[in-house]
């Protein structure tokens, strides 16, 4: 087995999880793909110095770090607009734990949030409408949309 087939094996085995993490942390699919490809490019430069059974953890941390660096390079307004962290907060929790928390948020939204809070949450975060667009669609004031979203976020926080 040569170097290339080892790398290809790693790539095919881990790509799915890696791209999922990058898509979760970044808002742009093309940029998420770049981050994952860069991880393998660096691996190639270093000639695969991987340590035994920690391969997946290493690759996933590399993706997380790549995404954090990418966000750091964005201008503040861009970071804010896409709801990325504004401060240099290093989330040192294991990646599985971070992803599990996101799964819990999704389960709460889909199962334990009432209307119209849930619809407002979905329109904002799934369809990425502006609050003004949501207000128009639901025929309510923007102030009411803000109020329901605040309630929704606080409820999620209390249930998590």
């Amino acid at each position, binding site marked *: 087995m040569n170097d290339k087939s080892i790398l290809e094996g790693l790539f095919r085995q881990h790509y799915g999880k890696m791209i999922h993490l990058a898509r979760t942390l970044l808002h742009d699919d093309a940029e998420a*793909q770049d981050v994952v490809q860069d991880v393998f490019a660096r691996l190639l430069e270093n000639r695969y110095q991987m340590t035994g059974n920690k391969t997946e953890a290493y690759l996933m941390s590399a993706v997380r770090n790549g995404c954090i660096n990418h966000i750091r390079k964005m201008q503040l307004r861009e970071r804010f607009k896409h709801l990325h962290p504004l401060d240099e907060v290093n989330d040192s929790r294991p990646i599985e734990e971070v992803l599990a928390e996101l799964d819990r948020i999704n389960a709460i939204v889909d199962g334990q949030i009432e209307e119209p809070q849930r619809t407002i949450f979905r329109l904002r975060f799934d369809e990425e409408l502006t609050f003004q667009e949501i207000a128009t669609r639901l025929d309510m004031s923007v102030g009411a949309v803000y109020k329901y979203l605040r309630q929704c976020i606080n409820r999620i926080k209390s249930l998590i």
Partner: protein
Amino acid sequence: METNNNIDRLLDMLDHPERYSEQEIMDTVNRDDETREFYRSLTQAARARRSQRSLSQPVDEDKAWEQFEQTHLTAQKHERLWLRVAATVLGVLMMSGIAWATVYTVRHLTATDTSKQKTEKVANTSQTEAEAGTNLGVADSSAVEDEAPVVFDNTPLEQMLDEIAAYYGMTVEFQNDDARNLRFHFVWNKGDGLEKVLEDMSHFESVSIEQTGNRLIVQ
């Protein structure tokens, strides 16, 4: 009540970030612990839903590996790569309406008539391009023989300029940070002088690149 007003202000800022200064945004987010925590929850909510969307999106390992191979593992494949470059250039020319271009004229055309190609500016359409079979993803000049054109396909400006600047012995200075990640389609003929390359690049939307001494300044 005051905190709620501050959070409402933050939500308004999300609809119109361009109306506020960076300082105003930071001041609002960090005004009190509750708002800061609220913003963190919004960040988590956005990630949660991106995660859910990602799971429903198909993952194409084959395409990703192919792209990686083309970009990083083609050093020993000059011949094949050159054919792909030729095919892509031909495709671009045909899209420009020059359907009579034939393979053996490509090398000549790329040296003399880049103006047809530079109109193919593409930002963030890698998927569409891939479907059209023109997604080459070549940004590694070492993989291509010296005189062959380098095709930057949906490539971030920063990456593209770093490579071009290094070739002409220049350094790059971004005065506009937003421009770093703008993506363009560009065919670079290394035989062209820097002046010609910059002239071709002057057609990029939303950026201007100027040469000052041995620096390329992006505004």
